[in-house]
């Protein structure tokens, strides 16, 4: 298999900068070139995207009923007052 100048370890280290658009153009191009033929890194990038998407589900956590009842009570008091 052909190898390039970018190490897999660097891809892992630079991934958030890559997602954030914070990499210089040359480095971004080198990373994307590496992804073209490195299956491990391609899978890692996809895993990270999935992980970020699933972390977004923190917005679906349950609020305990007593807490919800309490803040709704405060809301009704404000609206009625």
């Amino acid at each position, binding site marked *: 298999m052909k*190898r390039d100048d970018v*190490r*897999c*370890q*660097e891809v*892992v*280290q630079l*991934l*958030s*900068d890559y997602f*954030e658009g*914070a990499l210089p153009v040359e480095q971004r191009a080198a990373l994307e070139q590496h992804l073209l033929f*490195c*299956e*491990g*890194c391609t*899978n*890692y990038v*996809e*895993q*990270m995207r*999935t*992980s*970020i998407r*699933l*972390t*977004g*589900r*923190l*917005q*679906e*956590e*349950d*609020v305990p009923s007593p*807490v*919800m009842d*309490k*803040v*709704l009570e*405060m*809301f*009704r008091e*404000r*609206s*009625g007052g």
Partner: protein
Amino acid sequence: MVDDMAPRRRAESRRDTGGHVPQPRTPGGEAGRSWQEAEALRRGDQAAFAELVRRIHPSMVRLATTYVTSRAVAEEVAQDTWVAVLEQLDRFEGRSSLKTWIFRILVNQAKTRGVRERRTTPFSSLSLQQEATEPGMPPDAFFDDDHRWAGHWAVPVPAWDMPEEHLLSAELGRVIQAAVDDLPPAQRAVVALRDGQSLSSHEVCDLLGLTEVNQRVLLHRGRTTVRAAIAAYAGQMGVAV
């Protein structure tokens, strides 16, 4: 290409055709949504308020835990924040999103409480330095420097071949919550706000008083740990990871 005149043209076209014309002072986009949400709360729309609480209260508690000593105190801070939000709702001007505004009130409340408890700030340079020097990936994930494939994967990284219903299971949801909650404080705050609540890097830097670079380092560390937790869960479930 941004067309500055487009909104005016659209508004004029709606007037011409007798269609709906928005309130003149209602901003568009995300800001518009926040403004409408705040208006709903001001009108006493309890369903809208309950939905907002459901969406952000757990993240508020999580963010507060980075400043105070216990989860119980963090819960108190989050509830005190709702009191302040309801008191100050008329002062919300829509210059930030509603939830960013609420998180700002929360951070101020939590800081005050943290100072009272003499808790050190999680965003001091010393704390950040400590979090940044913790190992990210296990050292044996890559070949050593003396290996001909130095720095390349020493272990296979197969695709997560999990069906969507598996990915969206409540059990995996709890795994992710626990992974985020177990992160060092500054990483926890950044991951919860960026990935958990979809705030922008600019909003998070502003809210937590971080530089862009520090914010990215914390986000990266935190994301690496959360990904590893999902990989470990998938491994236990017998899914190839």
